[in-house]
């Protein structure tokens, strides 16, 4: 490694990305692995505490928090750590919700709309093509309009919102990603993910953390989400210190 490459790796490793474990979280280990493979440092966060451990960003992972009983993500959105995350997010902490994490963000009111039972009523797991549409803290490393393949797997992934909300999300360019080809769950306007107006709070139904190694994923396209946030945080640090 050259000296500067070492510096970059060192800087990357200084970026701390929290991964929350709720009772019933399943893809927390995968999200942590993805952060690690991107060069950052994953930090395990526990639902029952109020401690964000000074992380630079947070991932709410996939799974079935509280068994998805009641509504997916509903009970988790009231957990102690979510109170801190909601506050911090409103002050600019980047947050990515994947699948169940996306459901939690919608239930917490940080993102518009809701995720409901798939139109065909089955859990569906398949390798899915997505088009990345919005440039956010979590998607900066993708070319605008980039098409990527990552797994989608959910039973309640159908994105819905009232007509006005949908129109606003479209008009403000807040569709993070759209399903290309077959829509796996009947989501309105093929929406696979949305962002808040700042581009820091982002929710995505498919699973980029399952597409970070050629050995185990359909591609390594998912890595871009994790490298993007590391770059974005390092960039913000450079601005604030430079």
């Amino acid at each position, binding site marked *: 490694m050259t000296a500067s490459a070492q510096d970059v790796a060192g800087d990357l490793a200084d970026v701390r990305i929290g991964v929350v474990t709720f009772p019933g979280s399943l893809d927390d280990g995968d999200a942590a692995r993805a952060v690690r493979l991107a060069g950052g440092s994953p930090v395990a966060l526990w639902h029952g505490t109020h401690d964000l451990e000074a992380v630079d960003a947070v991932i709410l992972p996939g799974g079935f928090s509280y*068994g998805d009983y*009641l509504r997916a993500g509903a*009970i988790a959105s*009231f957990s102690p750590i979510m109170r801190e995350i909601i506050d911090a997010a409103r002050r600019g902490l980047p947050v990515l919700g994947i699948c169940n994490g996306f459901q939690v963000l919608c239930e917490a009111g940080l993102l518009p709309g809701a995720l409901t039972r798939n139109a065909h009523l089955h859990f569906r797991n398949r390798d899915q093509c997505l088009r990345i549409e919005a440039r956010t803290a979590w998607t900066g490393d993708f070319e605008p309009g980039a098409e990527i393949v990552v797994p989608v797997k959910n039973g309640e992934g159908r994105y819905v919102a009232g007509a006005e909300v949908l129109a606003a999300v479209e008009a403000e360019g807040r569709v993070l990603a759209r399903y290309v080809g077959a829509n796996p769950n009947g989501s309105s306007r093929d929406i696979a993910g949305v962002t808040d107006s700042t581009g820091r709070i982002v929710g995505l139904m498919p699973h980029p953390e399952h597409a970070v190694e050629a050995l185990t994923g359909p591609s390594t396209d998912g890595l871009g989400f994790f490298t993007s946030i590391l770059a974005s945080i390092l960039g913000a640090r450079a601005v604030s210190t430079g």
Partner: protein
Amino acid sequence: MTRVVVDVMLKTEISDPQGQAVLSALTKLGHQGVQAVRQGKRFELEVTDPVDEAAIRQIADTLLANPVIEDFSVHVQT
């Protein structure tokens, strides 16, 4: 057209993990007054008149409820 409501609940002797989860969430949120919760399904059917209540019961018994684990009740709204 008449609205008929079919309520479907797990039999009382069957465990209801969903209701349990809601109850423990309520307890954590400090709603001490709620002592028990059971979660079931509610179907609202729009039925052409005259309503054949026996037919609705049969639909409930075969399609809307799983009689092995669930009970149902039918209410014709007037």
